[in-house]
């Protein structure tokens, strides 16, 4: 059996081991590879920067679950840090599916200790989760209180200082949906197309490709795509001096690049092995 034949029959567990090492080693020995900010990420950042401090809120919907948290948590943290450090108000929806509620609360628990002056009801409001998906999005276009009479902690919205002048999408400056599914399209369909809400999206790399046409049409103002998008956003808020916290996405980008190089190498080697072993078998048959 030739070398390429042997390679074709290689136990795939060796590939798993190589990938694990490619991710593991850059964590211990960081390379500090450069990260360049792309236009869709810059657009989201600029849109948030345009919101006046103490003005209308940025609305964030956490439509994700623990399975996609490594990509979307850093985006949520970066957005909260940007808003909390610049006194911008944040209106948080715990997603349109139940898992999002836990993710939003976990994100707040992680970020709030960095900002002891930030208060619920004054600087941010966490609305929690309501079942209904598209009905929730549509209903908020008329009156947020209709679908969220209280915040996630049971406090009536009318009693919260931040919510005094916030009733529907007209009172929301910009909305960002963090999701690893097709939920952002529900926001575009019902909040964007129907009520004219300006929408940005933070999504997993798997979903990013499908959203580029919507960036081109302007249905999404900007997009944070996958861990790289999160790392770019972290770079932007670090540059502005909004935070000195640990940059979770940026730390992972070295590992990401090395793993990609390894996968490229494996794809090339795999293809060579495939064609070479095919040739080898043909020759063997002739003999």
């Amino acid at each position, binding site marked *: 059996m030739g070398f390429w034949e042997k390679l074709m029959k290689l136990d795939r567990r060796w590939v798993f081991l190589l*990938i694990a090492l490619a991710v593991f080693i850059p*964590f*211990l020995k960081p390379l500090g590879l450069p990260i360049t900010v792309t236009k869709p990420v810059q657009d989201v950042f600029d849109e948030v920067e345009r919101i006046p401090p103490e003005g209308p809120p940025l609305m964030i919907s956490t439509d994700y679950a623990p399975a996609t948290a490594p990509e979307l948590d850093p985006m949520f943290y970066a957005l909260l840090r940007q808003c909390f450090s610049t006194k911008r108000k944040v209106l948080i929806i715990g997603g349109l599916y139940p898992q999002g509620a836990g993710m939003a609360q976990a994100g707040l628990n992680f970020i709030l200790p960095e900002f002891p002056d930030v208060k619920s009801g004054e600087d941010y409001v966490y609305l929690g989760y309501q079942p209904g998906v598209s009905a929730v999005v549509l209903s908020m276009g008329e009156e947020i209180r209709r679908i969220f009479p209280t915040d996630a902690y049971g406090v009536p919205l009318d009693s919260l200082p931040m919510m005094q002048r916030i009733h529907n999408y007209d009172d929301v400056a910009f909305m960002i949906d963090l999701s690893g599914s097709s939920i952002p399209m529900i926001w575009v369909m019902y909040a964007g*197309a129907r009520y004219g809400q300006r929408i940005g999206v933070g999504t997993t790399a798997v979903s990013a490709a499908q959203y580029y046409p919507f960036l*081109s049409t302007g249905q999404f103002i900007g997009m944070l795509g996958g861990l790289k998008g999160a790392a770019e956003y972290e770079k932007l808020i670090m540059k502005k001096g909004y935070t000195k916290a640990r940059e979770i996405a940026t730390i992972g980008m070295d*590992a990401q690049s090395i793993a990609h190089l390894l996968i490229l190498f494996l794809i090339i080697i795999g293809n060579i092995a495939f064609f070479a072993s095919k040739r080898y078998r043909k020759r063997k048959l002739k003999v």
Partner: protein
Amino acid sequence: MKERKGLIIGSIIILIIFITMLIKGNPSGSILVWIAALLTLFIYSFLYKDNVFYKFAEHLFVGVSVGYGISVYWQNSFIRLVFDPLFITRTYIVNGHFHLWLFLAIIIPTLMGLLMLSIFTKKQGWLIRIPIAFVVGAGSGMSIPSTFQTYIFAHTQNTLFITLSISGFIMIVGVISTLVYFFFSKEHKGVLGKTANLGIWFIMIAFGASFGYTVMARISLLIGRMNFLLHDWLGLIK
């Protein structure tokens, strides 16, 4: 026999690596972090071979997910939208006066929801058609105009009024050739066949881009777990 030997040797090596890391690092003192770390390792053990640790973690995940989902739905649907307005806040009583419409606004959706449970009975099973008809009717009414606007009108408009640039030209060619590929009323021969072939290239490039992003996503998930194990659990990295 040979495989079992490999499994034992592999397990011992991994155990030694982790014990070394535990000694060299600054392991978390939180029991929750330890549980999460061990469950992560249990799940990853499947990459070697299906085993009892993986099965345990998988079943635990399914059970916890279902339990979490039920509790969130119960609290946010039944308690927040039905029980509280009916018995605690009594939203249908305004200034001491009973408002029938406000009362029905709670009762009718609740009854519709309860009708969904009729599927579990043989005689009254047909009643489920009422809430389903409502969901289908209302859902279609809500989504059809928005779907046209979001997926068709906005994109057609964007393709028609495109700026004169190389990317604009590529987009026009891509849209036309891909649409031609999906035109099946005439055999793909001659100019039509060549245009359809070009469409296939565009589709393949789109698949490639999508696959590239998928690889990035999967690696990101591994990075997330690795970060958790090395930072949150073992305290090996800052």
